[in-house]
């Protein structure tokens, strides 16, 4: 850049454009709507997590010792459950890789950003629960939930300007289990 270039001087001397009146109001509306939605969504999710946790605790686990402490060596869910768990984890990894590839290149509108942020929050909550899971049997439903959320996230991210429509096309473009 040459600051003494007459063209630079002339361009810099141009008056700033006046933004439309509704620009600020629209952004404020978007941010408030997003916040209001999160206000009930997060507690609702937490409540659902508590209920889920209570249900899980009510199950007669076969892989716990009588004192309730987990024995890693005896954590042996049924072979079919193990298979499903491995499959879910692999699928989850594929979805995450796919999401990482498309992450920030696609332009997204406010609704899309809002939905993305909410789904990412929910995935984060499931991850917290997963980190507290004491056995494979406990983590299996959480992995199912995580995969479902990642699928939703993939659908939202793959169609930046429509949140719900064209699910068939999205399904074709995203990895399958």
């Amino acid at each position: 850049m040459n600051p003494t270039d007459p063209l630079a001087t002339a361009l810099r001397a141009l008056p700033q454009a006046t933004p439309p009146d509704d620009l600020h109001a629209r952004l404020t509306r978007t941010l408030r709507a997003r916040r209001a939605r999160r206000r009930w969504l997060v507690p609702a999710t937490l409540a659902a997590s508590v209920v889920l946790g209570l249900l899980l605790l009510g199950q007669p686990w076969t892989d716990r010792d009588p004192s309730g402490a987990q024995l890693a060596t005896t954590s042996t869910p049924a072979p079919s459950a193990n298979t499903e768990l491995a499959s879910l984890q692999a699928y989850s990894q594929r979805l995450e890789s796919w999401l990482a590839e498309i992450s920030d290149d696609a332009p997204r509108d406010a609704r899309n950003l809002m939905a993305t942020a909410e789904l990412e929050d929910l995935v984060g909550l499931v991850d917290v629960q997963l980190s507290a899971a004491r056995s494979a049997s406990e983590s299996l439903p959480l992995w199912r939930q995580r995969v479902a959320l990642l699928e939703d996230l993939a659908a939202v991210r793959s169609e930046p300007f429509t949140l719900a429509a064209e699910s068939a096309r999205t399904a074709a473009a995203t990895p399958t289990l």
Partner: protein
Amino acid sequence: MTSHFCIDIPARLIARIQCGELAAFDQVYRLFERPAWTLALRMIGNPEDAREVVHDAMLRVFDRARQFRGDSPFWGWVRRIVVNEALMRLRRDRAHVGQAYDETEHAHEADTSTPAPWVWTEARQLESALEALPALTRSVIWLYHVEGHTHPEIAEMTGKSISFSKSQLARGTARLRELLGTSTAEDPCSPTLMATP
């Protein structure tokens, strides 16, 4: 005179935005609204699309405030987000066929025997001439001359080569000279140049 974006924001205000405080973001938004709008409008050329660019860019500023590490000025970070949004929109909008001049063609030799027309031209005429340029060419000129970016920086932002940035600057400048020279020499009230939206 430097970019209109050069607005120092107190670290405490930035920290409040990073905590998700809407009131703090609102203060910062009001400071940057005008420069952001001007930059988006100059680059895109279309008020409707510029509106989307500023809206989405500012949402991104709020959402990603925590990623701002403070190793560069906050205004530069905000400006980069606005530029990226605008460039993304230009890339996405397939209607913008011919957004730039052909890189392989050389600019006409500028007639430097007379003063450049922008020395005496009116702001409104210069704005109209700018609008007549292809969007990406206009963006390169604006990013270079007004926002002070270098050719390597512009090349990196646009995903093009350094020679592309240089050629757009040269060809765009030559075209501006043609448009303004014609307008001022032959018909100062040329409808093409006076018609601003």
